């Protein structure tokens, strides 16, 4: 028995030696190998989702699943406030809306083909729109199905589709272009071999580790510069930053505010934050079934008590937008004319006294579901204590906040967030009937001016008496080497048009 450790020791020593020599060769080949001959390869790291990552982006719960899908399957378009239609088109040539807002005509680009050589037709487009419902996609993929009557859709010709709406809506272009991708008719399973028509094709896929994408030579767009993209799954934010610093990645997504401040000062690295409308709203909901919150004055007092600038400065180090208690900052219908809510603890104290809830107790529940959520909640608790509220923080571990959704909805005061989405289509009715009515008008009135007026009026009501505090809008923060350019900040980073400068 006594020679067991000895043998183990020898084995270990040999392995260490192999490790060191392996490292030396690995270093020299990896730094040179990615160079000019092989063409430009971008290595981009995302948080990923471990082994739950999937090519089926309807059920893939992580940002990486959608980032990957958007590189493989062509998008209908993207939300783009600078364009006359509010969207820029991808595989679609145009979306025309009937005057009564009850039907949409979608027209595909001419002569686009899938990787198996077959042309992209109206049948494929229709399947793509129905697939989220038919394949039981996650709720966020089913926005289009909620607003359009997909069962009654009709093909007008090879590349034109007529789509009736469920109720008259004017914001259908935004819904269609927010996250819809085109897949081939009949696709129900997703493998690396599944025909696609996006800028890249899948060469290899290992869930939770790496996806190798290679340029699609037959892609219809002309803004693809890379030959390969390696999507790396690195779950830990610190490990992602380490990969960027050590040259193992050229681009990393989801950088913490603290690391962002540090990386911005590092030579050779660039930090970029998403811009509105591609920001998540961090909200704190005051439950109207909790007695004190039934009083409008208490809700206003809570909103006035929050020092929003301090949150932007100390939690996000400046990389966030101040919120005004109204959602969907940056979308065309967002009312920029509303007065910015001030920070007024004295007025807040007076309102609480007036309402007879001076010194009330409240527990705020939050968890690390969005960058800075817990830190912001901590500051809000401090702010509330400053106006005499006996506030406390219930901090949950990651993944717990929404785990029991019914219990979550019963919390008196809870943090939450919504990813970037237009206000009207994502409005949940049932809290304020007058707001619900205005939102319905804002989606369906025939005249654009009426829609805008109704939307602004609804936002005005929410600003005045709503039960949400939206102190900040939070962007996704990415960092990359200075050689990388052309990253587009959409709902998630779009890497299709990235360029890599040679060293």
């Amino acid at each position, binding site marked *: *028995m*006594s020679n067991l*450790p000895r043998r*183990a*020791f020898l084995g*270990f020593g040999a*392995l260490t030696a*192999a*490790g*060191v020599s*392996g*490292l030396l060769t*690995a270093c020299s080949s990896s730094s040179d190998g990615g160079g000019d001959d092989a063409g430009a390869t971008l290595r981009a790291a995302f948080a990923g*989702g*471990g*082994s*739950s*990552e*999937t090519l*089926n982006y309807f*059920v*893939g*719960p992580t940002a990486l*699943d959608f980032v990957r899908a958007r590189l493989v399957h062509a998008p209908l378009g993207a939300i783009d406030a600078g364009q006359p239609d509010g969207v820029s088109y991808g595989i679609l040539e145009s979306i025309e809306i009937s005057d009564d807002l009850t039907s949409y005509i979608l027209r595909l680009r001419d002569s686009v083909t899938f990787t198996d050589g077959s042309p992209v037709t109206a049948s494929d487009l229709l399947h793509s729109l129905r697939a989220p419902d038919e394949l*039981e996609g*996650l*709720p*966020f993929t089913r926005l289009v199905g909620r607003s359009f009557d997909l069962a009654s859709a009709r093909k007008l010709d090879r590349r034109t589709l007529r789509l009736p709406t469920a109720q008259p809506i004017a914001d259908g272009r935004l819904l269609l272009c927010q996250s819809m991708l085109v897949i081939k008719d009949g696709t129900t399973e997703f493998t690396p071999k599944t025909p696609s028509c996006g800028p890249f094709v899948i060469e*290899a896929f*290992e*869930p*939770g*580790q*790496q996806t*190798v994408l290679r340029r699609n030579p037959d892609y219809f767009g002309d803004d693809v510069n890379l030959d390969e993209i390696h999507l*790396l*799954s*690195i*779950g*830990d934010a*610190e*490990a*992602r930053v*380490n*990969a960027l*610093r*050590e040259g*193992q990645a050229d681009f990393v997504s989801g950088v913490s505010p603290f690391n962002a401040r540090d990386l911005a000062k590092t030579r050779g690295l660039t930090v970029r934050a998403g811009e509105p409308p591609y920001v998540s709203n961090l909200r704190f909901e005051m439950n109207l079934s909790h007695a004190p919150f039934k009083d409008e004055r208490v809700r206003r007092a809570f909103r006035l008590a929050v020092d929003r600038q301090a949150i932007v400065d100390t939690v996000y180090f400046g990389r966030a937008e101040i919120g005004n208690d109204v959602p969907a900052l940056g979308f065309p219908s967002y009312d920029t004319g509303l007065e910015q809510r001030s920070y007024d603890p004295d007025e807040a104290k007076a309102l609480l006294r007036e309402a007879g809830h001076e010194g009330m107790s409240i527990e705020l529940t939050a968890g690390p579901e969005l960058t800075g959520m817990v830190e912001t909640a901590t500051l809000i608790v401090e702010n509330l204590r400053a106006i005499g509220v006996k506030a406390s923080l219930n901090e949950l571990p*990651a*993944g717990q906040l*929404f*785990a*029991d*959704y019914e*219990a*979550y909805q019963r919390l008196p005061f809870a943090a*939450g967030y*919504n990813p970037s989405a237009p206000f009207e289509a*994502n409005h*949940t009715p049932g809290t304020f009937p007058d707001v619900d009515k205005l939102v319905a008008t804002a989606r369906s009135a025939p005249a654009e001016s009426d829609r805008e007026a109704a939307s602004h009026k609804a936002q005005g009501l929410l600003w005045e008496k709503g039960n949400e505090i939206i102190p900040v809008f939070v962007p996704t923060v990415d960092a990359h080497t200075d050689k990388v350019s052309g990253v587009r900040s959409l709902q998630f980073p779009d890497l299709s048009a990235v360029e890599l400068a040679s060293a």
Partner: protein
Amino acid sequence: MIRFGLTRGVTAAAMMLLLSAVLFFSTEALPGDAAGVVAGADATESERAEIRKRLGLDEPAVARYVTWLGDALTGDLGRSSAAGRPVAEVLASRFGNSVVLVGLAVAGIAVLATTFGLVAGLRAGRLGDRLLSSMTVTLIALPEFLLATGLVVALAHQGGMFPAVSIFPPGDSPWQHPDMLVLPVTGLVLGGLGVATRLVRAAVVSVAESPAIEQARLDGESGVRLAWSYVLPAAAAPGIQGLAVMAAGLLGGSLVVETLFNYPGVGSELARAVTYRDAAMVQGLGLALAGSALLILFVGDLLAGLLNVRSRPASWRRAERGAP
């Protein structure tokens, strides 16, 4: 010896059954379910109900336990509720990685802990022992994430010697990239070395005072020969049991190291599954980890039993006594 093995085997199997029930019903008892996490904040009530039904969460728990156990015996561990991947497939890809990582780390710990433990134990109370003891206490006191972060700073950031995170090309196993194994293995070794060294040292100290070693000393044995041929064989049994406990714990418990170095092991996968209420994954991975932990402990017990003079069959003892 055979009876000893059989008793231990039956105990392990009963233990396994008990663990499977504890595992299943404790994941059931958690508030909330995957439907709440998967659906997202903007889902409607009917969409939530539909997801719950699709994941089979509307059946009674006991019925699901029996079905699950039956399927597990045939190798079917169900599907992840996150994206529908078979749990067995995830297990197959992740478990091997963890075995490589933990195997190397335990080998490293065994060698270093034996060396340091012998040196310290045979010089108990002297300068060398005190130095080694301070070192081991320091290692035990340092949290794992601090050790791992220190490694990254020293060997990746400053030296640029080893890659800071493990990135394996699709289809490759960790074996093919030894450079990426260095930091995670070193992290685990440093994390476990303190406890293991103290364990070996304690065994060596008690053995060194025994009449047999005293006799060997009087016979003129000393130094390395005394340590290797007399002290180590006598102290090996508790040492092996200690290592077995450590290896069983590290297999699913190397979470900090796996996370910080992005090593694709089973621990980080388990943590993800717990976070996202992926019950099938938690149960499947948990069952596999519990099974292998029991197996390692079982083998450790058998080896220690073989080494322990007192538990050896009488015929062996007679044979030994008969030897010159």
